[in-house]
């Protein structure tokens, strides 16, 4: 019990620190990095649910991110709905595409599934590039409205154009997302995903309808990725076809692998670590005048897989309770 209280205390302290950060540090660039790291936390966590927990290798995850971003941006700009609703619409439309992609995945596995998902993302990227009337092609959609200000009283409202206020929106979104993932992963649903990942025929033999579970997990994962994309659209206020690119997916999976695939904390740690690491490397690049960042990414990915398969989180695994993280 005291251990439990101790944990709760740490959690509360952590949350307090996260909320206090913008009050203490006013550097906009730092806050911008925090926001970007936060968006990646949502993305990596959603990829992790699909690939880490359910074992479905998805190499087209950026497509869901892009679909969310474009959907929300277009609905707000062309139809005029509120960006707040747009966030959810982004999630839902992306979830629908997740369901679509889930259909071929029922019969495919391993490399076949990996290529199909890449193909899915590439087709959508080309659509985003070439449906110029709708998406403005490779220029991207610019001038996306920010999240609408919330009017508290006639003279006072909260704007969401500053990094700081957006940071709070994102913080809440992340808490909700991670809360959902934690519940999902620890529930009957989560344990079923893990059993399906470990052994599909074994899971079938205890009554798991793997087809329906695959469809469900594709849909749920896509929803959160789409939501993250929509948040990004209204934060950056610019979406381009690059959002759907293979490079974006590779970033997501490098972060997750680095943090620890199939753990709750892994994607969070990986996203934050790599976002700040890449900024740190930007300094190095300025000094040596060489574009070394991506090379280091690649090496990190290789080294993680060869030598620390459970990622950074795995290094501290003796601090975890075994049931907690699914490993």
């Amino acid at each position: 019990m005291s251990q439990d209280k101790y944990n709760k205390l740490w959690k509360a302290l952590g949350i307090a620190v996260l909320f206090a950060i913008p009050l203490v540090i006013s550097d906009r660039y730092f806050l911008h990095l925090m926001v970007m790291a936060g968006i990646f936390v949502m993305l990596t966590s959603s990829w992790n649910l699909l690939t880490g927990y359910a074992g479905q290798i998805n190499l087209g995850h950026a497509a869901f991110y892009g679909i969310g971003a474009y959907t929300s941006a277009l609905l707000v700009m062309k139809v005029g709905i509120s960006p707040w609703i747009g966030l959810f619409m982004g999630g839902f439309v992306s979830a629908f595409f997740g369901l679509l992609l889930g259909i071929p995945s029922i019969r495919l596995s391993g490399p076949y599934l990996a290529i199909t998902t890449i193909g899915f993302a590439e087709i959508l990227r080309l659509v985003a590039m070439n449906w110029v009337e709708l998406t403005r092609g490779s220029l991207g959609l610019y001038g996306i409205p920010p999240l609408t200000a919330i009017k508290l009283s006639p003279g006072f409202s909260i704007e969401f154009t500053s990094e700081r206020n957006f940071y709070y929106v994102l913080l809440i979104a992340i808490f909700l997302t991670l809360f959902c993932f934690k519940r999902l992963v620890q529930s009957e649903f989560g344990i079923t995903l893990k059993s399906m990942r470990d052994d599909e025929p074994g899971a079938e033999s205890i009554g798991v309808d793997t087809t329906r579970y695959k469809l469900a997990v594709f849909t749920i994962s896509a929803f959160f990725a789409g939501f993250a994309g929509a948040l990004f659209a209204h934060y950056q206020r610019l979406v381009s076809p690059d959002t759907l690119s293979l490079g974006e997916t590779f970033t997501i999976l490098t972060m997750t692998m680095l943090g620890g695939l199939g753990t709750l904390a892994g994607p969070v740690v990986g996203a934050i670590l790599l976002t700040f690491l890449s900024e740190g490397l930007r300094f190095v690049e300025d000094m040596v005048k060489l574009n070394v960042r991506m090379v280091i990414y690649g090496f990190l990915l290789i080294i993680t897989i060869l030598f620390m398969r459970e990622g950074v989180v795995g290094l501290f695994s003796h601090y975890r309770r075994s049931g907690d993280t699914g490993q």
Partner: protein
Amino acid sequence: MESLFVQQVVNGIIIGSIYSLIAIGLTMIFGVMKICNFAHGDYSMVGAYAAVFVMAWLPGWFGWIGSIVAAAAAVGILGVITERLVFRPLLTRRTDIDIIMVSIGLFIVLENLSQLVFGATPRMLQDPFGSATVNLGLFSTSILRLFCLAFSCIAMGFLHLFLNRTQTGIAIRATSQNRNAALLMGIDISHVYTLTFALGAGIAGIAGVLYGTLFAVFPTMGALPTLKAFVVTILGGMGNLRGAVFGGFILGVAETLGGSYISMQYKNSIGFVIIILVLLIRPNGLFGRREGT
């Protein structure tokens, strides 16, 4: 209309032959080692850079032949190095996800390292025919393109001879069909792995020279051929060499026809549409052999 059609089919066959050449190595490596290498197209990129240097040093025909040899050798060695350092340690605990991720890591490293070393500016490889074209009535094309077609067919022909006529070649095919039985024949599997990677990567290197000659040489040029090679490989069934050759031509022709009759912009997605349709109907590819149960 008629001549445009023929013209596009010919163009498709030419580019398709290069796709086949890249895919053949990919599918061979998959067949023997069950490794699905996302960095395969980067072997072509490295091969193309090898050609850039050789051609700068040796002009004309000698340069061309020299660069083919240099590309095959350099990339073959690179293939062996990557096999030993990156893939071999994973073979004992193979899971699809680890192998796919590690090859993606390799892809990122090779692509960006070459950007560091060679710079991002695209380079051209010289045309030993001085851009001469030939008109054959129904279609016209540059001699260079015909030469590339001929050359990749010759390369595939040699590979075919090697795999069918030599003891070592048959051993490679045998290993890919039944690893256990191959062990019992006294085939040194580890040796076969190394050889397969050297061969598969070397051919990709040669394909890179051809690809670079037709288009341009730049650090990220490997990404598209990788994806194309995967499409081809899946069309043909992973591990199936004949399938890869047919798949390459099918994709090449489908792309050029689709590009001219449907939409130029979506040309690069045609292959993906095809494989998604194919996989929906046949989860192991058009010519795929059933996986053991």
